[in-house]
């Protein structure tokens, strides 16, 4: 690929602010390529270096050291003297700044400000400049009269359009837009976004869109890049990244956006980003839910992990916990055969809650038993953490896979006491001393909100209610701290409050520790609330699967449509 193919190519750019002590490395080894007319979105938390990157590309960093190469049309802009840089600014690269009241000069009228770059770059008469300003204002959707007014006399939305008009005044090839939609009302937001879309189609400039608003990124960009601590952690096609993020950080950002997951609770990413001194190893390690000690040693390189997707992670992105391929199971009765599961393939990643829904008799419990290794499959294989599940190795380890069965009455022995039941897994795998096991058991009981007084712990299981026994079964499954939980209708006997508390606890585990769950349920309201991905099962086959917001908003398969219609009919 020759350098002429790319409009803008950035190689290993690092920008360090030395005015503060210790120096803050705002941008750390960022590389990207942008073609003519392409649009790239940059997302990330506040303070991750997005604006610095934009300013760096424009050459506006005054108090920092810029290292690396910014190649625009084959010319490296780093280190160029200010006079030459000024030739590029506004004519080739323009920026729509973030804070519109500060950026506009309060003592100059709008017309004068928009005309400023025109005066600087072109030799035009005042009349021609005025005409151009009128045309620009019309293009930006403002009445031409406004050019006589001052910035403080315009609303926020109008000021944003003025900035846009200013940026487009010299017909740039590259437009960098920094947070165009903050502090705008929805109508204003939509208008700005539509305007940008229209202008990009009409004028054909390349665009770099920096935004918190993932909806804007989804609408306007074809590729998206995630920045964390000044480093690129994910890069790929926008629609794919937003549907299937492969880095824990991107996924955390998506989970925090209410406009994607309309029904799920908001969960931010725990912890804070590091202060800005260069971190050894992976910068995201302290907040990552699948981090290991080895992640701290070296910085993960940005690598291709799928077609058109690059991720900077030692584990190659979010790891897959469970993968099932071609599972088949047939029950043979006296005079007939029942195919309970016909060729099902399934994937559950770390930190994902997958809902498996379907009518009674569709084979969900059979599939769950096969995945946990309780029932042998006729055909197909199950892999847990990329190792084949054979025998019980996956369920008898700490931090492995656990299954909770559907019927709570047979899930706990009525001859055993409460404490013995919860302690049983640790007894069988012979973990720790007796006191440690009891301590873990008590902690697990507290998580499911069962009392831990000695007289309750010594009660026999036959003296507990259905809901208590179900919670007991859940506590027993949680005592081995599993990473993947297969929950077969585990909240069917619980009252709403207990169910809510329990699921909140599990979601907390998911958010902080990368806990994943396969949640089999009939209750679609609940599934809509907690699930990240949905598998719809009908008569032993998976008929539809996808991200939960897509399935619940736009189901495609006939059966899914019917199921959702039945479930959400009353909206109670």
């Amino acid at each position, binding site marked *: 690929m020759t350098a002429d193919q790319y409009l803008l190519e950035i190689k290993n750019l690092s920008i360090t602010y030395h005015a503060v002590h210790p120096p803050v490395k705002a941008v750390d080894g960022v590389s990207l390529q942008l073609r003519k007319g392409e649009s790239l979105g940059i997302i990330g938390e506040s303070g991750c270096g997005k604006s610095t990157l934009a300013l760096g590309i424009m050459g506006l960093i005054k108090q920092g050291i810029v290292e690396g190469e910014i190649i625009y049309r084959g010319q490296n802009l780093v280190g160029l003297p200010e006079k030459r840089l000024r030739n590029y600014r506004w004519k080739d690269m323009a920026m729509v700044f973030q804070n519109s009241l500060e950026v506009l000069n309060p003592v100059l009228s709008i017309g004068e400000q928009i005309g400023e770059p025109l005066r600087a770059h072109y030799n035009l008469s005042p009349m021609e400049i005025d005409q151009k300003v009128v045309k620009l204002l019309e293009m930006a959707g403002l009445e031409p009269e406004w050019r006589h007014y001052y910035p403080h006399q315009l609303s926020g939305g109008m000021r944003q359009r003025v900035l846009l008009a200013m940026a487009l005044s010299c017909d740039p090839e590259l437009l960098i837009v920094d947070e165009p939609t903050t502090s705008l009302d929805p109508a204003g937001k939509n208008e700005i976004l539509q305007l940008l879309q229209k202008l990009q189609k009409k004028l054909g400039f390349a665009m770099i869109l920096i935004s918190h608003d993932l909806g804007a990124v989804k609408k306007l960009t074809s590729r998206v890049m995630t920045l964390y601590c000044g480093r690129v952690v994910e890069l790929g096609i926008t629609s794919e990244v937003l549907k299937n993020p492969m880095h824990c950080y991107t996924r955390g950002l998506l989970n925090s956006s209410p406009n994607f997951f309309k029904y799920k609770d908001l969960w931010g990413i725990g912890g804070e980003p590091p202060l800005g001194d260069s971190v050894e190893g992976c910068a995201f390690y302290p907040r990552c839910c699948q981090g290991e000690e080895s992640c701290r040693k070296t910085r993960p390189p940005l690598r291709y992990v799928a077609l058109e997707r690059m991720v900077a992670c030692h584990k190659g992105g979010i790891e897959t916990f469970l993968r099932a391929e071609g599972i088949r199971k047939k029950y043979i009765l006296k005079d007939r055969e029942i195919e309970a599961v016909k060729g099902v393939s399934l994937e559950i990643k770390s930190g994902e809650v997958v809902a498996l829904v379907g009518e009674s008799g569709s084979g969900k419990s059979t599939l769950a038993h096969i995945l*946990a*290794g*309780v029932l042998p499959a006729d055909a197909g294989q199950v892999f847990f953490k990329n190792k084949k599940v054979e025998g*019980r190795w996956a*369920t*008898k380890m700490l931090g492995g896979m*656990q*299954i909770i*069965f*559907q*019927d709570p009455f*047979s*899930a*706990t*022995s*009525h*001859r055993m006491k409460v404490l013995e*039941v919860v302690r*049983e*897994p640790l007894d*069988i*795998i012979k973990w720790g001393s007796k006191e440690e096991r009891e301590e873990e058991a008590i902690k697990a009981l507290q998580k499911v909100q069962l009392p831990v007084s000695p007289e309750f712990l010594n009660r026999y299981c*036959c003296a507990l209610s259905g809901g208590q026994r179900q919670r007991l*079964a859940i506590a*027993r499954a949680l005592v*081995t701290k599993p990473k993947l939980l297969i929950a077969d209708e585990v909240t069917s006997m619980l009252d709403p409050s207990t169910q809510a508390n329990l699921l909140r606890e599990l979601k907390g585990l998911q958010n902080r520790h990368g806990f994943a769950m396969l949640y089999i349920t009939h209750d679609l309201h609940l599934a809509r609330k907690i699930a990240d991905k949905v598998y719809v099962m009908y008569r032993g086959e998976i008929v539809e699967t996808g991200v939960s917001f897509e399935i619940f908003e736009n189901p495609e398969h006939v059966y899914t449509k019917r199921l959702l219609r039945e479930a959400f009919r009353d909206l109670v």
Partner: protein
Amino acid sequence: MLVKIVERVKEFSLPGKAGLVVILVVLLVAILAPCISIHPHNISSGPPLVPPGGGHPLGTDELGVDLWAQICYGARVSLLVGFGTALLAALGGGLMGIVSGYLGGWPDKVLMRLIDIMIILPDLPVMIVLAAFFGPSLLNIILVLALFSWVFPARIVRSQILMLKERSYIKAAETYGAGVWYLMWKHFLPEVFPLVAVNMIRLSGRAIVAEAGLSFLGLGDPTSKSWGLIIHHATNFKGIYYTDFWKWWLLYPWLALIIMVISLAFISRELERMVDPRLGR
């Protein structure tokens, strides 16, 4: 533990309590046989065929051996044979039942057919043949009786295990890697034990009667003073029916047998009633 047993026993009905008392008395008599019988049980200690009274509380038999002493020592035999057989049958049968129920597949099928055959075989005639074949000795009797009795606990245990195997908590324990020994010790045996205990009492009743029957036919151990043997000697005495001797010689061993078997039956009924409604316990 003892408190629990005492509590349960208090709930027995009158026949049950009576049965328990009788069995305890028999046990005491058997243990303290040398102390409570004045006369020796295998040497003649008086004139033959003396009616009860005087130095001989229950009279003497044709050889002049004191009947009371014989009955006391005979209690030992009955208890030994009865409970020994029951224990052996329960242990062996229980184990076979657990293995067959848990493993399933070919071992299960083979065992089931074996059990079917054993049930069909008429036990008394075969026992007679085997007893005659192996020779008269108490151990042989116990073994032969156990050989015919293990099938009943085995079937009961197997059916329980088949039911338990499918319970979710067993499956859950298996997912944690529980081995067969753990499951047997922690889960199966406590569930199965009440049923096996009831069966054991019933088996012991049957074993006592069978042993008495074998001894009555003369196939028992001639040195042991089994009650059946006493009756055997009594009925072999020519003229037992024309004289009064049967009033003590035949009556008392027969009474002892009946009392023993009935009390065992009462106890087993009580146990069954106790175990049944609390089958979930």
